């Protein structure tokens, strides 16, 4: 059975990420973000959102485990910051209802949501420049990087919350991520 663990960066919705995966029938666990990488046994990793870049524990270490990673909200920002992109505060906070435009309909994570999708967001910071190797796969009126992908390394991120009930096609994002993990396996 495919196993995907959720790394808890103290986000309010972390448990909903666990629930979404559980409801889609994969084996899942929520783990603390100070778990040693050697103790993580998974086919894929979700980095949850959270309140503070100073509380991401060992999240960046999990990028080297050789399995696909999906960063959500702060989870995406920490990937961008670690790998040489740029993160800063946005001019316009993204809260609740946001219409996201898909920029790459062949993207394995969000391509199936093209041309646009309505999502629920909650963030003040944003990814201003994606790291080398990544492409921006979605944007919106309030945020330039609503999603990014590096299909070579199987690292992905979304700025919004596919796990909450008000995101219209959130389940599809998790289904796509599960496919990515199963293909990489």
């Amino acid at each position, binding site marked *: 059975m495919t196993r995907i663990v959720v790394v808890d960066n103290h986000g*309010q919705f*972390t448990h909903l990420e666990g629930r979404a995966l559980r409801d889609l029938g994969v084996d899942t666990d929520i783990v603390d973000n100070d778990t040693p990488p050697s103790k993580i046994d998974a086919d894929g990793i979700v980095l949850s959102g959270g*309140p503070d870049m100073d509380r991401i524990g060992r999240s960046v270490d999990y990028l080297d485990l050789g399995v696909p990673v999906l960063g959500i909200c702060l989870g995406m920002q920490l990937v961008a910051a670690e790998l040489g992109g740029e993160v800063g505060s946005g001019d316009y906070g993204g*809260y609740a209802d946001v219409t996201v435009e898909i920029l790459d309909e062949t993207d394995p994570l969000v391509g199936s949501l093209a041309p646009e999708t309505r999502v629920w967001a*909650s963030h003040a910071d944003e990814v201003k420049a994606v790291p080398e190797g990544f492409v921006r796969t979605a944007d919106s009126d309030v945020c330039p990087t609503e999603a990014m992908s590096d299909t070579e390394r199987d690292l992905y991120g979304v700025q919004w919350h596919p796990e909450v*009930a008000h995101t219209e096609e959130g389940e599809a994002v998790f289904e796509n991520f599960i496919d990515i993990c199963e293909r990489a396996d």
Partner: protein
Amino acid sequence: MVDPESFIDEKVAEIGDAIGDDNAVIALSGGVDSSTAAALAYEAVGDQLTPVYVDTGLMRKGETEEIEETFSYMESLRIVDARERFLEALSGITDPEAKRHAIGEGFIREFETVAREVDARFLVQGTIYPDRIESEGTIKSHHNVGGLPEVVDFEGIVEPMRDLYKDEVREVARELGLEAVVSERMPFPGPGLAVRVLGEVTEEKLAVAREANHVVEEELEDHDPWQALAAVLGKATGVKGDNRVHGWVVAVRSVESRDGMTARAQEVDWATLQRIQSRITGENETVSRVVYDVTHKPPATIEYE
């Protein structure tokens, strides 16, 4: 999604094993969480469980009577009239967290009395998953009797629904055969109407909140909201008849949600909003304005405090 039937079998057995031949208490608020936990535990240990309902005076219109009726099948049910004690404890307090704290202390005092009387060794709670998350963070403090274990030396705490979401609890409540008045009940915060009057809790503000909440729930029933409420915000100028009124501002809020973690403000038609406005200002002399809250969660929370 949880399978209600096997969940009930499993939990009834678990609760029975945990409590054994001892006595237990549960704080029954009438909400779906504590009602479901009480029904599960009652099924497991019968009258060894004493469900305690405290009438804080912060309840909605007719709520105490409804609960008395719904749970009359539990012979051990206790209804405690603590209205005066709560109002007194809240007098002069304006800070939201201090209000929640005073109410929590009040609940602990009332439950301590009953727990000692019935020699309860176990505490059953209707805690659900999001409660634990929000309490672990510092968004809002939950659990009316969160501090009870420090006062009463229980042998154990039983939380049969600690991993469930609200929608799953409702499934379980339906499967248990709890009346729709409980299983479909709108979420209502533990501190009751106290968090729906901003600032100090007074009898006057509570009376306005109670009537306004009643109007809102009645008028929005067809919109099938996840939660609909009215909150007394503060005072503003109005004119009634030929007299200036410095009256209460009542906010009306109605949201759609699956689990309370996120919420969308409902789109309510103008005629309905106007009827709500007219009833609240017409039936309450001291209300000068009614406003409709259009904010989603996030950035707002569902309740005001």
